[in-house]
């Protein structure tokens, strides 16, 4: 029997856009104000209903407090372009409290947070949580092109570094644990080559985002798992490498 069913119960409510900040020509940070009580862990995501689009759009929570959450949005298509163009004051239905999120690994004294591109987003909230628990992670942000870089300033007070080759930089950084989020190919390659234990967040096309449609299922050592409900964060030991 699954015992975690009640832990991440999605919550549907209306949020108001209260900030739309340009980070780069392709990336904005949006803040939504409303009932954030269902957001429990860094690495969880929200899904936003957009006018004229049938499926909701999933985004990792960057960080949150009792009144608002932020998301970092890369413009890749119709929905993200619409979001970039919104003005403050717009109200949208948002499902919050989706997914499991990162678990703080108590045994890890020197964790490194590895973000690929927009994948850095959930690491912002994770870094804050780790600091609150007395652990100071290092931050490594990978961008293929130097001119795409952004985000170091979001990790205020942390040792943050940009990299073009994540693995090369990671090797130089003493660490005993990895928390990662980014493109699947990059994350899998990194975890394959690095010996440390890790948790990694995946991004796949979703139907519902709350565990009922099987649109997002991925094979793991423990059988088929839903990225939206059993993930999006998986432990390294759960992963199958031929996936």
């Amino acid at each position: 029997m699954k015992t975690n069913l009640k832990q991440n119960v999605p919550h549907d409510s209306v949020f108001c856009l209260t900030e739309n900040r340009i980070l780069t020509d392709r990336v904005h940070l949006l803040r939504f104000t409303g009932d954030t009580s269902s957001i429990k862990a860094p690495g969880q995501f929200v899904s936003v209903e957009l006018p004229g689009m049938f499926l909701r759009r999933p985004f990792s929570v960057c960080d949150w407090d009792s009144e608002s959450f932020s998301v970092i949005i890369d413009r890749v298509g119709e929905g993200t372009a619409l979001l970039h163009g919104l003005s403050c004051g717009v109200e949208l239905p948002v499902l919050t409290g989706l997914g499991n999120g990162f678990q703080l690994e108590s045994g890890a004294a020197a964790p490194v947070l590895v973000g690929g591109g927009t994948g850095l987003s959930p690491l912002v909230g994770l870094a804050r949580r780790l600091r609150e628990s007395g652990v100071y992670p290092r931050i490594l942000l990978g961008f293929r092109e130097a001119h795409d870089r952004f985000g170091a300033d979001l990790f205020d007070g942390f040792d943050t570094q940009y990299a073009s080759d994540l693995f090369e930089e990671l090797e130089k950084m003493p660490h005993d644990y990895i928390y990662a989020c980014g493109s699947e190919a990059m994350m899998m390659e990194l975890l394959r080559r690095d010996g440390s234990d890790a948790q990694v967040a995946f991004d796949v096309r979703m139907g519902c985002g709350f565990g009922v449609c099987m649109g997002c299922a991925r094979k793991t050592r423990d059988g088929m798992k839903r990225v939206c409900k059993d993930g999006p964060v998986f432990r390294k030991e759960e992963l199958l490498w031929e996936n």
Partner: protein
Amino acid sequence: MGELSVTLCGIELGNPIIPASGTFGYGAEFSALYDLDILGSFSFKGTTRNPREGNPLPRIAESPDGMLNAVGLQNPGVNRVIAEELPRLKRSFHKPVMANVSGFSIEDYAETCAKLDQEEQIGWLEVNISCPNVHGGGMSFGTDPCQAAAVTRAVKEVTTKPVIMKLTPNVTDIAAIAKACEDAGADGLSLINTVTAMRIDLKTRRPVLANTTGGLSGPAVFPVALRAVWQVYEAVRIPVVGLGGISSAENVIEMMLAGATAVEVGAANLRDPFACPKIISALPKTMKNYGISSLKEIIGGAHAK
């Protein structure tokens, strides 16, 4: 207040709203969101004789007013459904549930249905002969009247529960398939399953879905579903469950006027997990707006008398 109840193959439903197979799992996730007992019933995920891992990702694509899926019948298999899902469901849902069954051979259908026939909470067997997303089975049974009849007969032999055959719109003459199922002993029909479709990603110039094609559902298919229900209602005497694109109380009424005894709601649950409770609570007022005192009385009401 208007009367919402209807009777489907001898079983009374408090209202005609039934979440559709594949969009409601086995009920567990939704039971954390709302009281499942407000529903007429629900149809659980397509269940097969053996566990299935389904198709590779991506399995989901979007389209105007709808979505495509190519899940490929991922499910834990009938034995685990009986051992794990149904005992859990019993605690959160206290009405007859609709068991959705798929197979790759006539024996598959018969064996799975025979096992589910033993389960007290199952009210109806909904036999999916219309899944477009698996090869060597599923839809091929639903595109040929002889095959459709053969599956119907095989299932009827192993169960005393009402058998509802779920039909695909991907045929030239859906009424002929419907008639073949009725003649073979089906107690009811449900339609439509998804419409075969595809999308191509302009950036990669490749199909979006790993399976290349998938099934279209959501509001985009509502007029197609309505037409199919209309045609089948004219061709058979057994009850028809209408589905495809339903997302409002108005859609429910329109589908019932075309001939549906009850309706299923699919993709709408994925966009809005509260779609069904919203439709159910909007029904009384919507009925009033159109002068309807009892839903039973409007079934097939748009057909010439």
